[in-house]
């Protein structure tokens, strides 16, 4: 069991470290720490982190409650109505589908934050074990707008499918949805087609797709079961048809009865669309488990190097106070690594070169990983070191973990002349063409092209998780405000308009506030730029689960990169 670190300051601490190191036979010593949990900085960081976490947890609780977080009273009524029909909430369905006590890594739980869509977007996606098989589970929340698909719902659903596809995870849909969110049909209709294409592509790739239909799954939604390898329908509840009775009446003037048109019995006995007829929700979930059980699923990636990995020797609880509350204040990313990797053992590569970037090897939950972590700015040395390290990881078929805390590539005449663009290009080349799995964790700033070089979302890492203190933008708000002020002044001077710092100040402040707002972790996760904000103390668990999911697919590096500009 992970997380069994000895408490710091206890008499047994040193003993525990020695034992861990010797017992493993690993050549690396336990990492040293200079974190002082009693210090002012630590306490301030921890307080700020806990405050952000509380906000995240409150938002999550509102999503879990169901019904739509925007109007709690309406939400309560919707949930009560759902329960009155004897139906389970999506997370209850998921819990009943999963193996007892299986972990469930929920993805994008706060999608939709800051948008006009409901928080959580009426869909629950995540990874958990069914009959010992890691599955990507995607469950509609019918208490939120009847499970209708809003634009962000589509976005979140497609992201989940992408995760299933690249990591080769069997997909289980728990379907009960009113279909497209009609008032927003324009935004949903065209991208919506991708979900059906994805389903059949998953199937073509040999990734099983299973859909359990608990309620309505009509019109375009009918293709979710329609495109799946296996379909289970719940008696007297599932309704699957291209057009409901009103549309049938409009289209061909037929008076159709819903049950005959698309009931579970009809599809199980007559049309053959349904493969299994379930008596009730639990029966459907039981059947779903049976199906996953017979898939004869095998992970293609190598098994972990040890079945019983050591937890970190240093206390993960301290992760709360390490990252700076203000992203402008640097901290040593090794302190994070030391509280995440197995036995707090880390073999650092090129420790004396390019000190603003830390590279090296470790094991996490028994899986070997290469780690690339920022300690601030990317200079030429850091970029070259990182590009070299990525090539090494590809040679060894080793997944890479990126820990982002960067304000971007260095600027200035001196650095331009020394070829910072060429070196940055080397890094972006390496990260783009690397074929080993990448996982990115945002532990602080992610500004500018630093985001790209460190496997930001656009570079298709298998997973992106963020800490609540994370900030993401093209540049820092103050820099952006300053840049805009300079540009505006130059323009004013050119046009001969008198310039007043006082007059521009509110505009600059407004801009800074806007960028600040748009660069928060919540803003990013609301747009599904990442796969979720996590509690720093859960980092090891989350990364371990991600690595395990990744190993459902093969892990293979490449030697084929773009031309490195020398």
């Amino acid at each position, binding site marked *: *069991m*992970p*997380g069994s670190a000895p408490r710091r300051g206890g008499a047994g601490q040193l003993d525990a470290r020695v034992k861990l190191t010797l017992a493993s036979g690993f050549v690396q010593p336990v990492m040293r720490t200079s974190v002082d949990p009693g210090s002012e900085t630590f306490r301030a960081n921890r307080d700020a982190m806990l405050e952000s976490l509380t906000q995240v947890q409150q938002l*999550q609780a509102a*999503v*879990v409650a169901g019904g739509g977080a925007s109007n709690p009273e309406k939400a309560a009524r919707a949930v009560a109505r759902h329960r009155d029909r004897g139906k389970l*909430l999506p*997370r*209850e369905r*998921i*819990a*009943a589908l999963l*193996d*007892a*006590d*299986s*972990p*469930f*890594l*929920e993805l994008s*739980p706060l999608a939709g934050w800051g948008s006009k869509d409901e928080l959580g977007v009426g869909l629950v996606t995540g990874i958990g*074990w069914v009959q*010992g098989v*890691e599955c990507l589970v995607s469950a509609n929340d019918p208490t939120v707008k009847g499970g209708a698909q809003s634009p962000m719902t589509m976005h979140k659903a497609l992201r989940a499918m992408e995760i299933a596809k690249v990591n080769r995870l069997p997909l289980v849909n728990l379907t009960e949805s009113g279909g497209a969110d009609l008032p927003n049909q324009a935004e949903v209709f065209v991208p919506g087609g991708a979900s059906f294409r994805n389903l059949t592509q998953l199937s073509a790739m040999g990734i099983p797709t299973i859909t359990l239909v608990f309620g309505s799954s009509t019109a375009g939604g009918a293709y979710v079961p329609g495109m799946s390898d296996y379909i289970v329908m719940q008696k007297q509840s599932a309704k699957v048809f291209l057009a409901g009775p009103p549309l049938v009446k409009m289209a061909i003037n037929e008076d159709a009865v819903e049950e005959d048109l698309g009931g579970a019995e009809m599809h199980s*006995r*007559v049309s053959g669309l349904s493969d299994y*007829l379930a*008596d*009730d929700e*639990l*029966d459907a*979930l*039981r059947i779903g*488990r049976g199906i996953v059980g017979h898939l004869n699923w095998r992970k293609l990636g190598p098994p*972990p190097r040890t*079945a*019983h*990995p050591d937890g970190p020797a240093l206390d993960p609880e301290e992760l709360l106070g390490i990252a700076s509350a203000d992203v402008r204040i640097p901290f040593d990313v090794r302190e994070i690594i030391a509280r995440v990797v197995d036995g707090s053992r880390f073999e650092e590569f090129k420790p004396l070169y390019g000190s603003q970037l830390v590279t090296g090897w470790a094991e996490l*939950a*028994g899986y070997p990983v290469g780690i690339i972590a920022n300690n601030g700015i990317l200079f030429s040395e850091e970029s070259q070191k990182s590009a070299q390290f990525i090539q090494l990881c590809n040679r060894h078929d080793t997944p890479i973990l990126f820990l982002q805390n960067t304000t971007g590539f260095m600027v200035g005449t001196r650095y331009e002349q020394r070829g910072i663009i060429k070196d940055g290009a080397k890094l972006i080349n390496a990260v783009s063409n690397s074929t080993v799995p990448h996982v990115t964790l945002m532990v602080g700033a992610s500004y500018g092209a630093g985001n790209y070089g460190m496997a930001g979302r656009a570079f298709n890492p298998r997973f992106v998780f963020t800490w609540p203190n994370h900030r993401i933008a093209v540049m820092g708000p103050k820099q952006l405000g300053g840049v805009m002020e300079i540009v505006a002044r130059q323009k004013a001077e050119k046009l001969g308009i008198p310039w007043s710092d006082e007059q521009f100040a509110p505009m600059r402040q407004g801009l800074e506030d806007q960028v600040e707002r748009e660069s928060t972790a919540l803003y990013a996760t609301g747009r599904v730029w990442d796969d*979720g904000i*996590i*509690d720093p*103390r*859960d980092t090891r*668990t*989350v990364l*371990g*689960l991600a690595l*395990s999911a990744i190993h459902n697919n093969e892990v293979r590096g490449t030697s084929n990169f773009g031309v490195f500009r020398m």
Partner: protein
Amino acid sequence: MEQRAGQADVGVVDTADAVSSMDEASPERRRIRRILVANRGEIASRVMRTAKAMGIQTVAVHSEPDARAPFVADAMFSVPLGGRTSAESYLDAGKVLDAARRSGADAIHPGYGFLSENPEFAQAVMDAGLVWIGPTPAQMRAMALKVESKRLVAEAGVPLVPGAELAADVSDAELLAAAERVGFPLLVKASAGGGGKGMRLVRDAASLVDEVSAARNEAQSAFGDPTVFLERYLERSRHVEVQVFGDRHGGVVHLFERECSIQRRHQKVVEESPSPGATPATLGAMYAAAVAAARAIGYHGAGTVEFIVAGEGEAQEFYFLEMNTRLQVEHPVTEATTGLDLVEWQIRVARGEPLPLAQEQITRSGHAIEVRLYAEDPANGYLPNTGRIEWFADPGWPDVRVDSGVRTGSEVSPFYDPMLAKVIGSGPTREDAAATLAECLAHLEVAGVRTNRESLAAILRSPAFLAGDTTTAFLDEHPEVLAPAPPAAELAHALVVGALGLAHAEARHAPWARLAPLGWRNVPAVPEVRRFAVPAAGGAEAVVEVHVMRDRAGAWAEVAGLPGVEEPVRIRVEAESFELPCVVSAQLDGLGSRWSAQRVGHFLMIGGPQRVLTVRILPPYPDASEHAHDHGLATPVPGTVTQVLVAAGDAVSAGDTLVILEAMKMEHRIRADTDGVVEEIRVAVGESVDAHHVVAVLEEP
């Protein structure tokens, strides 16, 4: 068996020599080198234990279902008797004798029950030249018929329960007069009977004639002998018996009494020594009477003289009930208080030795109580429970002896008595013995079959028992001890620990075990639910759900559905640690305790500080077999209706054919999927129908 043929020959020659010079009147020493125990279960093991200690080899005989029973493994040799029922195996004297010959046994110990009080068998054993460890056939016969035995002991001056013998042609008036002499309430008993058969309780004269006639019929059909007699029924009486021992040299001693008043269906459940109810005066008279009765028939071996004791103090009276000419089930309480080995005495007496001790050398100290652990449901009319014993573990309690006939994996078959074990507790005082024994029973681990374990512990802890208020009416007067439910709070704690233990045990082999804590969520949402069937009042089962929701500091558990508790019980689990395989240390609501949780088959045994509880693990999903889908009352394929066998209004049973359809030269029968009444028939003979065409509609009752 073949390799022991030589030994067998030697044995036979040995005993044949001995027998030729053997005469019951002139006791000579006989050697016993190999005892065949003509019995099964705990008593077979019990006899073998002493035999081994005396340097005597042992032979077990066994039926087919007992082939892997512990007593067979305890024996040095074993002989299969074949057959399954008692009649086909342990009661088949010919097979047992044949086994003795084949195994080279030179003596037979009959245990109790089966052939132990069968004089013909005893005679056959002796005729075969083997030593019979028990009284002579003549002694057994003297005691076998109740009327006979009473006449004998009355002549020896032993008081009898007021009673009357009835001639076969007794007139109604004579019957009434006899009944008035005996006094009401009275029992009509079969002379040849036992085990409650042919026994009627009559409270007044009105029903006397009918009941006697009914008892006669029952006696005739059960024992082939319609003779019945009347006996005063002593309400709230005590059953007290005196252990006697005689040897072949005329020696007779008693080994004090045992009280066995607490009975169910005329079978003893709790037995103890000394008797809490009999006065010293009664006991003194009883010992004398028992010794006198044994002397009267020149008894040798172990015997028990049973009495009924009525009244208290000065007014206490006792009456002879019957004499058992064998070792009793409850002999361990005598052993525990006297320090003697009664089986050893039986063997010594059978070898012709004098009794090891004289009366004045026999003393007893302290108190001992035996309870019989049965596979039965006390709250459900003591219905025997059969099945596999998934787990059986004697907790090894100090001052407690467990004579068990089963172990983990044993089958309790319907063919034999469902007694699993005798548990005997002893201590300086009755309170000590009761407390120790109750505690041991509370921690005795048994799963797989229902037992009276909790009921026994409840008896021992009940105020009435502790006050010594033990009469034959005890269980009728104290129904609360039949299915004692543990206090809800304790049950809740046990189930929480059970759920945690189960989770940890399962997680050991889970593929995610190294990756995440149990039930980990980044978005906490839904508790993990486990369902158990727990014992509830009146022997019923209640379905209890345990919801466990974990957080960083521990877990919250909610227990819903506890019998007699409306609101779910919330328990904070501050700490849990699991040392494999099953020890659980839990800090629940601020109180630390050590538990064990062990899964055996579909059962979970939860051992706590107070007791071991066995609960049934319920599956999380509905039983698939209950969901077998019918194919509807519709045509499976297109075809022509050739027969319509029912009409609207007909009652049909599930499986009845309603309509026959011919398609592609094959006949398809459409059958009722449930019991019900035909509401409508939607096809006619000769009609061509499509597939999935509904042919009939049933109205379910």
